[in-house]
């Protein structure tokens, strides 16, 4: 952990930590019910009662952001988790064993890779339907090819190293060689890809919700809030400004962490 002590990584951890903290607090406490409408406070601006104002239904924007961060964060987290776990398994098996299994799986992977991940997610959503769980699953599936390709190429590099041959001579099985011997060596690259993947997942979720096929009303998500704020961009700019700023902070936090990890690897 010592080698990660660089400005980018520390700043990234601080920004991400801040966002995660708000999301955690949002699980237990929000100043107002995020879905409660108040006709009197409708379209109201920044005030002591409503720190970030209210939306066109009179819902407290700050409370909805607290809920929205949690939803966006969870969707992104599970998206990256699905992409990483399945991607690592496919990449590890194809990279380590090679041969026909590699050919078949990687051609399927290439076919999936040919579509932009959001487009691929759109196809999956049109088959499965909308909703938080389905959006997560769709984005997760869409993220698998990129992780599989990164892991495969890294494993292929490591397989030719003598320490892998040495492990085979010691009597280590393939599973142990892949996950105990090789995987720790590709972890820095994987970690940095996870961070970038998380960023892409945040933006993809925001994009899908913006298009109206992600998180469904009345649930809040940062993308959904941006989409709803679009019509009020000039009359109440704070409605778009605050969720947008939070997305920027989230993405920036993870991007800085990824940059910090890459910097640490270069040392």
């Amino acid at each position: 952990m010592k080698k990660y002590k660089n400005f980018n990584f520390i700043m990234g951890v601080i920004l991400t930590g801040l966002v995660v903290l708000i999301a955690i607090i949002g699980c237990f406490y929000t100043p107002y019910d995020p879905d409660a409408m108040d006709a009197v406070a409708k379209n109201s601006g920044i005030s002591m009662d409503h720190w970030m104002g209210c939306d066109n239904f009179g819902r407290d924007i700050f409370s909805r952001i607290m809920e929205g961060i949690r939803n966006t964060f969870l969707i992104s987290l599970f998206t990256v988790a699905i992409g990483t776990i399945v991607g690592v398994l496919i990449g590890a098996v194809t990279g380590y064993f090679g041969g026909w299994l590699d050919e078949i799986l990687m051609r399927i992977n290439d076919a999936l890779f040919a579509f932009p991940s959001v487009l691929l997610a759109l196809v999956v959503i049109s088959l499965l339907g909308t909703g938080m769980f389905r959006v997560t699953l769709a984005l997760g599936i869409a993220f698998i090819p990129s992780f599989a390709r990164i892991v495969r190429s890294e494993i292929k590099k490591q397989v030719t190293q003598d320490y892998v041959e040495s492990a085979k001579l010691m009597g280590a099985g393939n599973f142990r060689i892949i996950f105990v011997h090789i995987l720790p060596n590709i972890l820095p690259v994987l970690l940095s890809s996870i961070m970038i993947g998380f960023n892409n997942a945040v933006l993809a979720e925001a994009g899908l919700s913006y298009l109206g096929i992600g998180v469904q009303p009345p649930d809040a998500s940062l993308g959904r809030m941006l989409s709803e704020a679009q019509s009020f961009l000039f009359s109440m700019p704070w409605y778009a400004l605050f969720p947008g700023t939070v997305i920027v902070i989230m993405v920036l936090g993870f991007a800085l962490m990824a940059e910090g990890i890459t910097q640490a690897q270069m040392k």
Partner: protein
Amino acid sequence: MEEILKVEKLNVSFAQSLKKNRKQVLTDVSLSMKKGEILGLAGESGSGKTTIAKAILGMIPIDQGTITCNARTPQMVFQDPYSSLNPAKTVSWILQEPLRMKTKETAAGRVEKVKSVLHQIGLEENLMNRKPSELSGGQRQRICIGTALMSEPELLIADEPVSALDVTIQAQVLQLLKSIHEKKQLAILFISHDLRTMYQFCDRIVILRNGQIVEEGKPSTLYASPKEEYTRLLLQSAGIR
């Protein structure tokens, strides 16, 4: 003396990408080793020395021939000490791994064995928690030898174990291999292209050319009166004749 390795008419070929025909790497190679013997395998780069080693250890498929290895847990020390040790693990973890695989030794027992092997290979115990990147080339090669020793092998294949090291370190590593050989009666298949080193180190030398054995014998006989022109050239290039 008991024979621990017998290779008979070994043929190995490799597929060549974009070409239909396979490249013949070894042709009718036959050799044998006795318990506690140091056999040198010499030849130019690409003559098939490493291929023989890998075939003996079952790391590559063979086309024809038989390999009978009666040695317990044969091990190999690779040429490049920089890629032979797992960069993500500590010295202690690396040395313990063969024990994890082959014995039911407790963690404390494994650490004790690691300390004992570190002593045998002439390294301090304080290196245990270091990673390979924190070690010198000589220290790394000693750890590679130590890892092989953890399996208590009867046959050690040393594939150009000193060629990536400085001259002074080379002598130390060779001295270490010699002392382990004497203490444990360990048979060593010593692969090298340096005939000068082999003269002092090996009991018998086999000369390999284009995947075929061209000559073999005791170092003194081979160096004094080589039968083959190729051997003579190798000796000349090593500055011996």
